[in-house]
């Protein structure tokens, strides 16, 4: 028995010793796009440790955004150390409700640093004037167009549609039928599975209306502008016949585009590299067209710092996040991934400047940021999002009229959000 206690004590001592010498940090991060990104993250971490020998950082790859959230929260609940994580930007309200995160303002982050990021990217991480999420892997929706198809249809291959009207008219010319009268190419495709709400945010924003308020407890699904935005989306298939009726699959849309089955597609910037590598025709990338204004939601992951951490750990975590979001690191990260660089000064670094000159498509997402709106995120976000997704799909498949579908979704959202006002 004595021996056993001895061993246990020895183990404790061994386990405790490094903690005295240096600060250990653990974070979870998701990967939602292609490429060997774990290696990129590991290299970044190694670079930080070189400059900060008193901090050791453990980076744990945790799957997609859902997995990462589940794993991080489960780890916290089980008492395993995790002082920070990259999680979905729209997990903010869920994390607040779990009382899991701290505001960067409250742990000594200085205001000028917080203001160095694009404001559009800060919106999803801010609650009641305090910053909880620092933008890291962020994207927007852009429009890809097939220049060969434009040429073939007698359109200017260098000019993308700038308004909804233009897009509908140009798309009508881009629709191609084969000898048998069957459809060989669609004019435009907007994906409506998986992230229907995200695409729809773009339509609504372009039509002059955001879908929720900044406190995440009020939605505007039944607003007339929102309804007419959904009507336009539905009309692309039902009235103008330039898009397939029913829903369009998110996962296979890129292939549809690169195989020339649609002349225009709306998709995340995160697909830029993949399209660049597989398209056998010249293609352009443009901002989404405007109805009343330009617009696109942002998306992607933010840095959060967890409440369950010591002051020393918080300090080290803050230092790490500040380091990894510095202009140089941000530029490196953007080039490696295709994500938007999260701050203007990153685009001034020689590295990124050079990259954008050679591949101007990479700058479209940045330029669109000034029209961007935060991704849909509210309390009870999963349910609210699903209500909207269902309404969009019901309208697109002709199951319900847009007004009817959106009114039902708004009613559901009201029910869910009332307790949070």
């Amino acid at each position, binding site marked *: 028995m004595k021996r056993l206690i001895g061993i246990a004590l020895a183990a404790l001592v061994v386990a405790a010793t490094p903690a005295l010498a240096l600060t250990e940090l653990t974070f979870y991060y998701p990967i939602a796009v292609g490429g060997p990104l774990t290696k990129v993250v590991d290299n970044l971490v190694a670079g930080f440790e070189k400059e900060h020998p008193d901090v050791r950082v453990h980076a744990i790859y945790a799957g997609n955004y859902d997995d990462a959230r589940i794993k991080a929260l489960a780890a916290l609940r089980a008492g395993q150390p995790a002082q920070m994580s990259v999680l979905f930007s729209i997990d903010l309200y869920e994390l607040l409700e*779990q009382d899991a995160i701290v505001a960067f303002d409250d742990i000594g982050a200085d205001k000028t640093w917080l203001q160095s990021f694009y404001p559009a990217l800060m919106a999803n991480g801010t609650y009641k004037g305090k910053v909880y999420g620092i933008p890291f892997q962020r994207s927007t929706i852009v429009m890809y167009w097939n220049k060969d198809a434009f040429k073939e249809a007698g359109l200017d291959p260098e000019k993308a549609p700038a308004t909804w009207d233009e897009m509908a008219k140009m798309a009508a010319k881009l629709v191609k039928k084969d000898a048998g009268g069957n459809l060989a190419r669609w004019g435009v495709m907007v994906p409506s599975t998986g992230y229907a709400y995200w695409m729809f945010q773009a339509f609504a924003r372009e039509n002059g209306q955001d879908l929720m308020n900044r406190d995440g407890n009020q939605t505007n699904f039944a607003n007339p502008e929102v309804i007419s935005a959904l009507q336009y989306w539905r009309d692309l298939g039902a009235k103008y016949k330039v898009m397939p009726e029913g829903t369009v699959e998110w996962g296979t849309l890129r292939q549809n585009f690169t195989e020339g089955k649609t002349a225009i597609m709306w998709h995340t910037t995160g697909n830029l590299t993949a399209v660049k590598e597989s398209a056998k025709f010249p293609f352009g990338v443009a901002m989404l067209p405007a109805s009343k204004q330009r617009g696109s939601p942002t998306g992607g992951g933010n840095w959060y710092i967890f409440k369950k951490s010591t002051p020393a750990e918080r300090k080290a975590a803050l230092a790490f996040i500040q380091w990894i979001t510095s202009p140089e690191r941000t530029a490196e990260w953007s080039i490696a991934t295709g994500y938007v660089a999260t701050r203007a000064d990153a685009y001034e670094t020689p590295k990124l400047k050079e990259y954008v000159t050679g591949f101007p498509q990479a700058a479209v997402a940045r330029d669109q940021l000034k029209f961007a709106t935060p991704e849909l995120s509210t309390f009870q976000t999963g349910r609210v999002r699903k209500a909207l997704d269902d309404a969009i799909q019901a309208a697109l498949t002709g199951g319900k009229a847009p007004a009817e579908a959106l009114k039902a979704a708004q009613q559901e959202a009201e029910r869910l959000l009332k307790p949070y006002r």
Partner: protein
Amino acid sequence: MRHVYGWLLLTPAAILLVAFTHYPAVATLAESFFSTGTAVRPSRFVGLGNYAALLGDPIFTQVLLNNFWFALGTIPTSIALAMLMAAWVNGALPGRALVRLAYFTPTVLPMIAVANLWLYFYTPQIGLLDKVTALFGAGSHNWLGNPDTVMGCLVAMTIWKEAGFFMIFYLAALQALPPELGEAARIEGASRWYFFRRVTFPLLMPTTLFVLVNATINSFKLVDHLFILTKGGPDNASNLLLYYIYQTAFSFFDTSYAATLTVVLLALLGAFALVQFQLIERRVHYR
């Protein structure tokens, strides 16, 4: 003393069962009587409140109905197909091992891989299905994007996936049947169909029962493909009970409501198993 040994021998299995099967089941049942707690709003007892919410939840009604059609679409066809394939590969035919392997292949593929495969069958225009129908002059179909066809697509894929698995059981059962029975029937003048109907089919009843229970459970258990193919859409047209539970638990974080749905799922499966064993056992011949 002997009892002590008996209990000792049972202990490891009992601990595992209690820890990983019985306790979670009971905990789930208990949780279904509480509201979901967060740091801000602690969990409280709501009695049958979650169950009442269930009745007013149109998505719940729809996923149940969907599950019913999914089960009805997959089970009889995959069982009949499995029996047919087993009878086919049980006979002497050239390349029998290859045919068996071919039938069995879908079973060894993970559901996620199968779903990815079929996603490219169903994709409009560039999908295999559209390319084949295009040869006959048909236009493009949005198979998964249309609420009228999406369930049929899932059913077809599931049958493709499952029939081979069930075939293995039928094949084993057929091989255990003494060949003299067939010979005796031939001498008595029975046609192949008569022999199948009057002898083989009844003798396969234990296998059929086993397969039926499995197929029913699978029709509630198999939702992996939804993650890839439809995410339950469009507008819940392909949503199934278990996937809805997943959404409720991990995307809505409403663990109590998820627990309530889980209790319903458990009760349903338990009832199925009971009915199947009780009703069919009477007609089953066990040797």
